[in-house]
């Protein structure tokens, strides 16, 4: 019986080791991207990673993150090797300032010619040395028309409307959350003044009791299942959610919104720069870009890609708003380390703010007092018992 067990164990282990050995040979590129940010073959859309593997024979190791800050932490903590990342504009500026990006060799990225002029020579990468645009988009408010009164819609203050308490979601990263507050209070979304930031913090803390949860990718499940009814998020994700729940609607708030570009870069911790550039080049191919963004709902930075998209999507006013609407959009710029730290700690204040709850304090003190009392009493009782026992022996 024992011998049988040992044999089974050994067999199981050998079986496990064998495939592990065969794994290592194929060239692999590690891509670190936002969640739900590439067409992966569902609903009969193109599977970009599979298409890449077929076209080039390079395997894709695809990992996701849910915010720019998580990406930055992963790179800053070190110890990982990632070949391609797709951060947002302000984060690219920060990474360039911190020297964490590799300059791109555009000889390996011929498809760069298809990128529209409007998305080159940007504020965050003025020399076009480090990044290639992947998508651009806007933020706004997604709401469920079944439960939300149309009259309440139009401004960012819908997120502070106590009528929908407990059904409101909020961004779970400092910049997007602060931007909402800043737009509502009339500040610039790149505000650096400490008093202004504290005012925004206070406004966000005001909102906290009404918020169901601070989410990023989890928003899909919550809005589609109608667990929540109102959420600020990105236009492209709205279009994806619309396919699963037709009662959802999108609104560009009056005070303005955030206009962003997400671009592909190569971090300094990469292992295969040439493979990374091949991947970036593949994603810029108009056909791939068109089919990918048709699924994603985000906006393509390539006019040529629109030829490969469905007519309806290529002219969707949410994905490609007209000039007038776009005028309300503001882009993030990189804030210096001190301001970023301040925002980080203010954001932590918002997340941990809970008021002073008496119940836990009383409960904990009472428990420790009770335990202390029991220890003291049993100790005293034991000593008394020993004394009486010893006294009995003495007589």
């Amino acid at each position, binding site marked *: 019986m024992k011998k049988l067990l040992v044999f089974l164990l050994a067999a199981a282990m050998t079986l496990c080791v064998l495939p592990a050995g065969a794994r290592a040979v194929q060239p692999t590129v590690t891509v670190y991207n936002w969640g739900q940010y590439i067409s992966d073959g569902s609903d009969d859309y193109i599977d970009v990673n599979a298409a890449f593997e077929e076209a080039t024979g390079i395997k894709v190791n695809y990992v996701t993150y849910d915010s720019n800050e998580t990406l930055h932490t992963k790179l800053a903590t070190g110890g990982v090797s990632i070949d391609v990342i797709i951060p947002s504009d302000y984060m690219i500026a920060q990474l360039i300032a911190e020297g964490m990006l590799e300059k791109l060799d555009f000889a390996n990225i011929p498809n760069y010619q298809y990128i529209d002029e409007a998305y080159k020579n940007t504020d965050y990468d003025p020399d076009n040395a480090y990044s290639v645009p992947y998508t651009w988009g806007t933020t706004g408010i997604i709401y469920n028309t079944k439960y939300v009164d149309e009259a309440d819609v139009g401004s960012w203050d819908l997120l502070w409307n106590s009528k929908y308490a407990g059904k409101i979601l909020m961004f779970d990263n400092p910049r997007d959350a602060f931007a909402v507050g800043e737009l509502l209070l009339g500040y610039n979304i790149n505000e650096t003044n400490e008093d202004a930031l504290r005012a925004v913090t206070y406004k966000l803390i005001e909102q*906290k009791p009404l918020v*169901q949860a601070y989410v990023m990718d989890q928003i899909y499940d919550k809005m589609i299942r109608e667990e929540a009814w109102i959420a600020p998020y990105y236009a492209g994700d709205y279009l994806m959610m619309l396919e699963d729940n037709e009662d959802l609607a999108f609104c560009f708030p009056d005070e303005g919104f955030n206009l962003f570009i997400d671009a592909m870069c190569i971090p300094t911790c990469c292992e295969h720069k040439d493979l990374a550039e091949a991947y970036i080049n593949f994603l810029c191919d108009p056909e791939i870009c068109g089919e990918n963004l048709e699924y994603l709902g985000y906006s393509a930075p390539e006019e040529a890609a629109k030829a490969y998209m469905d007519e309806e999507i290529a002219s969707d006013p949410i994905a490609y708003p007209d000039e007038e609407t776009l005028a309300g959009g503001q882009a993030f710029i990189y804030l210096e*380390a001190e301001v970023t730290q301040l925002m980080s700690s203010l954001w932590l204040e918002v*997340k941990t703010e809970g008021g002073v709850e008496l119940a836990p304090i009383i409960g904990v003190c009472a428990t420790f007092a009770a335990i202390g009392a029991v220890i003291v009493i049993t100790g005293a009782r034991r000593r008394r018992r020993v004394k009486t026992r010893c006294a009995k022996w003495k007589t």
Partner: protein
Amino acid sequence: MKRNHLAAPYIVWMALFTVIPLGIVLYYAFTDSITGAFTLANLAGMSTYAGIFMKSVWLAIIACAICLVLGYPVAYFIATLDNKLTQRFLYMLVMLPMCISFLLRTLAWVALLDDTGIINDGLVKLGLGALPLARNNAAVVLGMVYNYLPYMILPLYTVILKIDRRLVEAAEDLGANGTQVFTKVIMPLSLPGIISGITMVFVPAISTFYISQKMGSSGTTLIGDVIESQFKAAYNPNLGAALSLVLMLMVFACIALMNKFSDGDDEEVITL
């Protein structure tokens, strides 16, 4: 039997991978995040998190108490079964959930408790209103109790199993009734198991972040959440290390306090 050298590789391993990392945590806790200079500011900032620490400890205490009340009868029942087969089978049944992914089990509870979840769906169909079951402290405690109940049952079971039946018989012979047998014989003898169980529930309960994230809401942030965010979203390992240090010291203090209850034999702090 000169076999001390057998333990040498283990000692080296522990020194490298347990003692030194703790030293690194200490180092980060006492340095400033931007400049790297020695500072007590991280620790001084702990007062802002006092509320969260209190809440984490309180919820963990409640979870321990509930686990003890629920787990003791179960452990007692299984340990005092006469049929050894059923006993072993029930023991494995209790252990089995621990092998299934803790994440998925928690998510299943979220699906059950959500406003649009299974229980509320049923309630609505029956004509009763939907109850706010999720996203509050009670849901988080429920999650903790559910996930850590086996950790309470197993040490209790192991200890109660070892209690000499003859002691119980002797007590009964000397005239003790059922309640007295329980309070004066079985309970004191199972004390090491109780302490073991409380420790094994308290430690994960106080430091969990997944349960509070999934089953709680923005108002139930626990200390584990804050530490996790400092290492994953916001890059401030110094603050995270300081919080970890305080958490660790708190846990050690609680365990030392509890060990005062079991006098003498503390060779094995945890009985498995």
